[in-house]
C-alpha cells in the first residue's frame, strides 16, 4: 500500500543561488565584494508520515511552505536535507496547465500532458475521447491552444489533470476559473478521482473544501508543522490563530 514518510526534511534557498546572475555582475562582484550569502529557510525539520487511506489537507498562510513541501514530495526540488520515502505512484496536479504549449492544438496538448504525467500511449488513446467530451471543447480541439479563451484553457487543463488516477494524488488550489456550470461538473469529477486515490494531499485556502474531503489536517507556518490532527479541531485553532 502507498505511504509517504518524511524525516527531518529541511529545505533552504541560498540567496546567492536564487539571484538570476549574469556574467557581467559576477565580474563586478569580484571588485565590490558584496556578501549576500544568507539563506531563506523554506522548510525546517518536517517530520511526518502519511499512511495509506489518509486524505490530508495542508493549511497555512501564504509563504508557510505548503507548496514547497508538495514540490519536495514530487521530487521537483531534488536538493534538500533529510529524507523522503515514497511508496506508490505519484502524480502531481501542482498547477493545472503547466505543460501546455500554446502553438499545439488541444488534441496535441492532451497527448503531451498525459505523457508528462506519466501515462502510456495506449492509455492516452483511451482517455482522449473522454477528455474531449468532458471538457466540451470538441468544436475547438484541433485549434491551437493559444486561440482558446482562458476559461476554455482552464477546462481542458483541469480535465486532463483529473483524468489520471494515481495512488497518491496531490492537489494545489485546483478550483479556480471556469464558469459556474463547469465548476459544478468539475467538483463531481474531482470527487471521483479523490475517492479512487489511496492518499490525497490537498493544499487549499478554502477551509470548507478541506473540511469536506480530508480526514487529517496539517497546519504549517514559517516552514514548520505547527499542528496536525483532525480537521475540525485544527481548522478551529487555525481560525482563532491559536498555535
Amino acid at each position: 500500500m502507498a505511504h509517504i514518510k518524511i524525516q527531518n526534511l529541511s529545505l533552504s534557498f541560498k540567496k546567492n543561488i536564487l539571484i538570476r546572475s549574469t556574467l557581467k555582475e559576477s565580474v563586478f562582484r569580484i571588485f565590490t565584494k558584496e556578501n549576500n550569502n544568507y539563506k531563506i529557510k523554506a522548510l525546517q525539520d518536517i517530520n511526518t508520515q502519511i499512511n495509506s487511506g489518509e486524505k490530508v489537507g495542508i493549511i497555512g498562510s501564504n509563504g508557510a511552505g505548503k507548496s514547497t513541501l508538495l514540490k519536495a514530495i514530487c521530487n521537483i526540488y531534488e536538493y534538500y536535507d533529510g529524507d523522503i520515502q515514497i511508496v506508490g505512484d505519484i502524480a502531481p496536479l501542482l498547477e493545472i496547465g503547466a505543460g501546455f504549449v500554446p502553438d499545439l492544438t488541444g488534441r496535441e496538448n492532451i497527448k503531451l500532458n498525459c505523457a508528462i504525467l506519466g501515462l502510456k500511449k495506449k492509455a492516452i488513446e483511451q482517455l482522449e475521447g473522454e477528455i474531449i467530451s468532458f471538457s466540451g471543447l470538441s468544436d475547438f480541439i484541433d485549434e491551437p491552444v493559444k486561440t482558446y479563451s482562458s476559461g476554455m484553457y482552464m477546462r481542458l487543463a483541469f480535465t486532463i489533470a483529473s483524468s489520471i488516477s494515481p495512488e497518491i494524488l496531490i492537489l494545489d488550489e485546483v478550483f479556480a476559473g471556469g464558469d459556474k456550470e463547469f465548476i459544478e461538473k468539475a467538483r463531481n469529477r474531482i470527487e471521483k478521482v479523490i475517492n479512487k486515490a489511496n492518499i490525497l494531499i490537498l493544499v487549499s485556502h478554502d477551509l470548507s473544501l478541506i473540511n469536506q474531503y480530508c480526514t487529517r489536517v496539517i497546519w504549517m507556518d514559517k516552514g514548520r508543522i505547527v499542528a496536525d490532527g483532525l480537521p475540525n479541531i485544527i481548522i478551529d485553532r487555525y481560525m482563532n490563530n491559536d498555535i
Partner: protein
Amino acid sequence: MTIVFSSIFGQDPKVFAVFLFSGMTAFNLFSASILISSTTFMEHEGLITKVYIPKIILPLTVCFSALLDSILVFIALLIIMFILGSPVTMTLLVLPLSFLLLFIFSIGLALLSALATIFYRDLQQIIPYGLQALFFLSPILYPKKNFSDPLMSFIMDINPISVYVDLFRGPIFESRIPDLSSYTLGLAYAIISITVGTIIFSKFKHLIIYKV
C-alpha cells in the same frame, strides 16, 4: 550567398554551391543544437517548476530536432546536387557516421550551453556571436588550403568544426572517404565533449530548478 561568394572567390557557382552547403549542413547541426539549448530551460520554466521531469530531456530534444533538421537539409542538398549535375557517388554511404559523430559532439556542448545560460543569463546574448566567430574560423566558406599563414592554419587544424566539416565535405563534395585521422579526431572530440558535458551537467542539474 552562393552567388556572391562564388564570384568573390572566383569559383563556378554550381561547384561552390555544393561546397558551401556540404559545410553548412555540418555547421548548422552544431550551431542549432547549441543556440536553441541555450534558451530551452527558460522557455520551459512552467514545465520544470511544476512537474518533475529529468532535466537532461530538454537539451536532448533540442539536439534530436536539430539532427532531424539537418538530415532534411541534406536531402534537399542531394536534390540540388542532382539538378546541378554534381557527381553523386557511393562515398555518401559513410555520411551516417559523420552525422553520428557530430551529433554526439553537439550534445555535449549543448548540455553545457543549456546549463551555463541558467547560471549566467547574459550568455544567451553572447553565444550567437561566439557561434558566428566560430563560423568564420572554420573552413566553411573557403577551403582550408587558402591559408598560408601558420597561425590561421593552426586555428583551422585544432578547430573541431573543421574536422567535422571535412567528414561531411569529403563524401559529399570531393567524393572521397575522409582520412582515418579525421575520423579519429572527430571521435576523440565527440567523446571528450559528451563526457565533460554529462559530468558537469549531472553535477549541477539539481540547481537548475532554483535558477530558472
